[in-house]
C-alpha cells in the first residue's frame, strides 16, 4: 500500500493505525504535509495507539493548529473592524468560515489567507477601507493588477503591513470570465450567522463553493484537503437536515455548478467513503482521472504524474477564460518571463 493510499484510508477510517509499522508513518506524514493536512490527520487519529514519535508529532500539530486558527479568526475580526465603520458587511469563506462556524472539517485545518466575500457594489469601498486600515498591495505588476480587476472574482491580494497576513476580497466565487456565473447576490443574501457572530455561506452554498473551488476553478492542487472539507461538511449538514442533499442540488443548479458538485460528491464517496443518497450515487468514467490526480503522490510527498498535473493545470485555465482570451493572457505572461 502506498503512503497516499494509507493516508486516505486513515482519514476514511478504513485502515487501523495499529496496522502500520512505525516506519510506514513517515511516508504518511510526508504525504499529509504535502497536502497541508498533517494536523487534520492528527485530529482524526487523536486517541489512537500510535508510535511514540508520531503521537508526539501529532500533539505538536494539534496545538499549533489551534494557535493558527485563533490567529486566523483574529484576522477576520481585524477585517470586521476595518469594514464595519463604512457599513460593509462581509461573508467569511473557506477555512476561516469553517473555523468560525465550529465545523468538524475545521479541526486541524490549515488556514492560509483570509478569504472574504462582499457585494460587488461594495468592492471599491472595501478596498479603500482596507488600505486605510493598513493593508497594502502585494503585486505591483500593472498587467497583473489590471488582470485581477478586469477578469477575476477577487481584488489583487493585499497583505497587512504590520501583521503580515494576506486578505483576498472576493465579489463572487468564480472568475468573471469563467464559463459558469454563480449567483453572487444569492450567496451574500442567503448567508447565515455563525456561532461566533461572523456571516458565513448557508450550508448548501458552502458545499457548492467548496466543490467549485476544487473542480471548477482550481487545478486540483490541495485537492485532497478540499475534498475532505466537502466530505466532512456534507456528512454533518445531512446529519442535522434530512433535506440537505436536495437543497444542495437546488443551490448547485442555481449557481450553474451541478456537475462540479456531483463530481465532488462522487469523489468523496470514492476516497473518503461518503454516504450518498440514491440520486447522487452514480458513476462517471471521467472520475478516474480526477482520482488519479488526487492520489498522485509518492512516499516522499512528490507529485508523481507531471503530465496529469499539467493537464489539470491547462484544464483549469480552459474553464476560466474563453480561448482567445486565454491565448492573449498566456502570450502576455510568456513575454514577461
Amino acid at each position, binding site marked *: 500500500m502506498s503512503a497516499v493510499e494509507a493516508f486516505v484510508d486513515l482519514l476514511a477510517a478504513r485502515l487501523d493505525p495499529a496496522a502500520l509499522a512505525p516506519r510506514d508513518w513517515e511516508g504518511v506524514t510526508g504525504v499529509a504535509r504535502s497536502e497541508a493536512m498533517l494536523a487534520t490527520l492528527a485530529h482524526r487519529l487523536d486517541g489512537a495507539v500510535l508510535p511514540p*514519535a*508520531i503521537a*508526539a508529532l501529532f500533539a505538536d500539530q494539534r496545538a499549533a493548529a489551534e494557535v493558527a486558527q485563533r490567529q486566523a479568526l483574529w484576522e477576520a475580526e481585524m477585517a470586521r473592524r476595518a469594514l464595519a465603520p463604512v457599513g460593509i458587511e462581509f461573508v467569511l469563506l473557506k477555512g476561516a468560515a469553517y473555523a468560525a462556524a465550529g465545523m468538524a472539517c475545521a479541526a486541524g485545518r490549515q488556514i492560509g489567507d483570509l478569504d472574504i466575500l462582499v457585494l460587488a457594489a461594495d468592492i471599491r469601498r472595501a478596498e479603500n477601507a482596507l488600505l486605510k486600515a493598513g493593508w497594502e498591495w502585494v503585486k505591483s505588476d500593472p498587467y497583473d493588477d489590471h488582470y485581477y480587476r478586469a477578469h477575476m472574482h477577487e481584488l489583487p491580494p493585499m497583505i497587512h503591513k504590520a501583521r503580515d497576513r494576506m486578505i483576498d476580497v472576493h465579489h463572487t466565487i468564480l472568475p468573471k470570465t469563467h464559463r459558469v456565473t454563480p449567483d453572487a447576490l444569492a450567496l451574500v443574501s442567503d448567508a447565515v450567522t455563525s456561532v461566533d457572530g461572523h456571516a458565513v455561506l448557508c450550508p448548501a452554498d458552502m458545499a457548492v463553493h467548496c466543490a467549485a473551488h476544487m473542480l471548477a476553478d482550481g487545478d486540483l492542487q490541495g485537492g485532497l484537503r478540499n475534498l475532505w472539507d466537502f466530505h466532512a461538511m456534507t456528512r454533518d449538514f445531512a446529519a442535522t437536515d434530512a433535506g440537505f442533499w436536495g437543497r444542495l442540488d437546488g443551490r448547485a443548479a442555481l449557481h450553474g455548478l451541478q456537475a462540479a458538485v456531483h463530481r465532488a460528491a462522487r469523489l468523496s464517496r470514492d476516497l473518503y467513503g461518503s454516504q450518498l443518497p440514491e440520486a447522487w450515487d452514480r458513476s462517471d468514467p471521467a472520475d478516474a482521472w480526477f482520482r488519479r490526480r488526487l492520489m498522485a503522490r509518492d512516499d*516522499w510527498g512528490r507529485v508523481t504524474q507531471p503530465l496529469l498535473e499539467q493537464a489539470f493545470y491547462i484544464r483549469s485555465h480552459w474553464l476560466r477564460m474563453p480561448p482567445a482570451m486565454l491565448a492573449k493572457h498566456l502570450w502576455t505572461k510568456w513575454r514577461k518571463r
Partner: protein
Amino acid sequence: MRHSTRIAVGPVQFRIGSDWAAPVAALERLYAAYPRDDARPADATVRLFAARPWRRWLRPSVHIGGDFVVPGALPLPLAMGLLAAEMGMNLQVALGWRRHLLLHASAVARDGRALIMSGESGSGKSTLAALLGEGDWRLMGDEFTLIDPQSGDAFAFPRAVSLKNSAIAEVAARVDAARLGPLLAATPKGDVRHLIPRTDAIAAMHESARPALLLFPRFGGAASIEPMGEGEAFVRLTEASTNYVALGEAGFAALTRLVRDTPAFGVTYADSAEGIALVEQLWADVLK
C-alpha cells in the same frame, strides 16, 4: 528517492533523500557517530533533487525541498551538495518544528547550565560555540537552540558545526582532521567546512540545560560588555526565532520567562581568544 539516509539531531529525526549518491555519502560520514534508530519514523523530510531528469548529469544542480519548500530558492552545484543538505535540514526545522521555541542561536553548557549566543551570521556565535565546545563545555549547537515551553529548559541541536571562512583555519588547528568535513570553497556563504562535534556532546544531545546566560556577540571592535535589558533581549530573540509567531501564547510565555530569568549582555570582541575570555568572565560573574 534514489539515495537516502536517516539522521537524528537532538529531538529531530530526519530522512534525507537525494538524486545523487555523493551528498548522502558525505552526510553519512559526517553523522556516522550519531545514534541511529532505524525503527523511528522521521519528523522531517529533506529532498535534494534535480529540477529536470537530465540535470542529474548535465551541469548537475541541487534543488532543496522536502516538507517545506521555499519558492524561487536557487539551487547549488553538486560539489556543494553537503551544504545543500545542511540548508535543507535547517529549513525543515525552521519552518516545521513546533515542540520547542526555536532560537537561531548557538549554545554550550557546563554543569547543566546553558550559555546561549544569538547574533546575525558573522557575529561569531558559531565559532565561539565551536571553540568553547573544544574546551570544557558541552557543545549544544551552532545554529538552533530549542527552548521547552513547559520547563523553560534549553535543548540541544548539535548538528555538524558549519565553520565559515577564517573560522575554518582557526578551528582546524585545534582538532583532529578526522573530525572535519570536506572544504566547500566559494559557496554562497563563503568557504564552508563542517566540524563533527565531540562524541561526548553527541552522546549528551538529549540532555537539557537550564539557561544561565544570554549573549549577543559582535565580532570586530574594542572589547566591551554591555548589560542588556529584558525588553531588548526579548525583541532581538523574537527576531531570532523562526516559530515565535506560530507558537502564539506559548511562545510569548516561553520567551518572556527566558529573558526574565536569564541575564543578558551584548559583547564585542576583536578575536576569538578575547571572546572566550569575556565569556568565561561573564559566566563566572553570573554564577557567583
